[in-house]
């Protein structure tokens, strides 16, 4: 920094000369501004802490009244009965089921779309495609719920079998094709005569291909014969939630893939790698921490979503039979809070009121743990990538 005297000596215009008083004022303004910003930032943090505190304060009386055992081990949810039963196991299971289902659907789709956007589509197309995908996030969840309840649920009931079959073909066919190619390549890799290798590889490809087609067709026809009795089920909600999580996953992981940068990609090409090899072996590992963050964000979105599940999951608090049956109605934590909060109050039954806060606390704790885990993984990944 130049001092005042220096400025005077150098003969510049007087505008740069700042009096001692003015400097003091500026310093004051700077400190003031910074402290206001700090206050706002800490306010946000304090709000989070307060939410935790108030939910916990109202949740603790439930556990004091009824203990932990019933809540976590029973699936009898009869809060309005005398005496009430508050087994939330089936509800916790429903939340997990719906979240898992939507994650299984949205993560592969989301990451594939992100790779396509960042490494395959030309820049001009990407500029239009990304905002369109991000627009999905702007659709209010009640609109998704309305669609799920009024259009998608009846559709699943009338055309459930064919929908399941086509979904199976579209999702499974590419993966099986890839598996067949890789398998026949691996099996013939040790044959040294090139001609022979190609011949055997072709034969194997044909054999496996026919096998895969038969498998696809068999599962497809089984699915086509299935009848979906109720359209408001775990599958419906999983599909809708996966669409709601998609924009987050695509957008965040595309940013992560972009952040990998040109130099790594060009380095990979310079070593003779193909584009596929570059994406799979260089870009994806380098962006993995960002992609993981995207996945966690998507999972949170699905876990915390209320309106869609309240409208379209069917809200029946039982564990489906068999346990993986996505075609049965389920009930989630968020929907239970939304549905029962309206009339449960401290007066009519305190366990019934506080159990909803217990569920809220459970949700908070789950998302807290998820965030913590993802943070740890991201930090570790960074260390590995930077070679430490």
């Amino acid at each position, binding site marked *: 920094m130049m001092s005042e005297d220096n400025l005077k000596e150098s003969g510049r215009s007087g505008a740069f000369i700042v009096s001692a008083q003015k400097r003091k004022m500026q310093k004051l303004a700077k400190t003031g501004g910074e402290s206001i910003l700090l206050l706002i930032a800490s306010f946000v943090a304090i709000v989070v802490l307060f939410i935790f505190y108030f939910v916990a304060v109202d949740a603790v009386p439930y556990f004091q009244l009824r203990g932990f055992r019933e809540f976590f081990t029973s*699936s*009898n*949810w*009869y*809060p*309005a*009965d005398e005496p009430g039963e508050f087994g939330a196991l*089936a509800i916790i299971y429903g939340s997990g089921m719906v979240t898992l289902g939507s994650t299984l659907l949205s993560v592969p789709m989301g990451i594939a779309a992100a790779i396509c956007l960042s490494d395959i589509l030309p820049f001009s197309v990407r500029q239009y495609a990304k905002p369109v995908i991000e627009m999905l996030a702007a659709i209010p969840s009640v609109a998704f719920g309305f669609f799920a*309840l*009024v259009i998608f*649920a*009846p559709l699943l*009931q009338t055309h459930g079998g064919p929908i399941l079959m086509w979904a199976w073909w579209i999702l499974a066919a590419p993966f099986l094709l890839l598996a067949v190619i890789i398998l026949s390549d691996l099996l013939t890799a040790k044959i040294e005569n090139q001609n022979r290798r190609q011949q055997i590889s072709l034969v194997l490809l044909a054999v496996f291909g026919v096998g895969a087609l038969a498998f696809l067709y068999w599962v497809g026809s089984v699915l086509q014969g299935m009848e979906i*009795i*109720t*359209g*408001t089920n775990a599958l419906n909600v999983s599909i809708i939630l996966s669409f709601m999580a998609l924009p987050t996953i695509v957008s965040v992981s595309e940013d992560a893939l972009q952040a990998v940068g040109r130099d790594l990609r060009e380095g990979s090409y310079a070593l003779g790698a193909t584009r596929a090899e570059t994406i799979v072996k260089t870009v994806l590992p380098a962006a993995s921490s960002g992609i993981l963050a995207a996945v966690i964000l998507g999972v949170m979105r699905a876990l915390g979503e209320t309106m869609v599940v*309240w409208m379209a999951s*069917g*809200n*029946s*608090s*039982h564990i489906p039979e068999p346990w993986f049956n996505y075609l*049965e*109605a389920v*009930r989630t934590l968020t929907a239970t809070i939304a*549905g*029962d909060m*309206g*009339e*449960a109050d401290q*007066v*009519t039954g305190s366990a019934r009121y506080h159990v909803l806060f217990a569920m809220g606390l459970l949700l908070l704790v789950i998302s807290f743990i998820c965030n913590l885990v993802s943070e740890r993984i991201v930090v570790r990944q960074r260390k590995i990538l930077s070679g430490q």
Partner: protein
Amino acid sequence: MNLFRKIVLGAAVLGFMAGGTAEAANKIVMDGSTTVGPIAKSFAAYFTKTTGVQVTVSESGSGNGAKSLINGTCDIANMSREMKDKEVAAAKSKGVKPVEHIVAMDGLAIVVHPSNRVNALSKAQIRGIYNGKYTNWSQVGGPNAAIVKIQRESNSGTQDSFKELVMGKDNPISKKAETQASNGAVKNRVASTPAAIGFIGLGFVDNAVKAVMVDGVEPDERTVKNGTYPITRPLFMYTNGQATGVVKQFIDLKNTPEGKRMISELGYVNR
């Protein structure tokens, strides 16, 4: 709707608080049933608008309504059941003389998809469907399709009525029953699901769903009114002694055209 009711109630409470301990003639305090609540709140909003008398409506259940009346903390107890002998005795010992006023009748229609060929069910069959004994429509004379049972959320008055009038004490509704948030939502689900069954207030029935005969009786205003429809019950308001002054005026609303309109708009049946 619920939010709207809450706001009305909240406004009533606020108004009551602003008025402080107003003269008895200037306010009416109501407590009791959640089922009668909509009528009470509708009446209250109308009554306050036309007469300026503040009406407070609390919904804490029929039992609490009776208790409040006995303890003299409310002017009108809303109840969806008759006062028990024990409660009447307790009231007498405290010098309170409960007088019963029937405000409306409540009929619960059992609805199925219009394409379902089931036209009539017995109460026992309905009970069997909801407690999980019957899982296929073919067991009750319908097509070969699994039954999708739809109930209301646990704190719904309609749900309470159904449990009391159809299920009975020892027959919990199957855990597999789906839950919808309102009469309208139940109706929509039944209208779009061929294998569904649900129960809704008579006022919500339209052409999108088919109300079945219960024990051979068609549910309509007439059968609810004369009590031949089996899933029917009167809704009560109880006062201490014969109603007088504004309380009488309030209860007599049920006989005015405006009161009758509100009752049937809410899906209840006029007596």
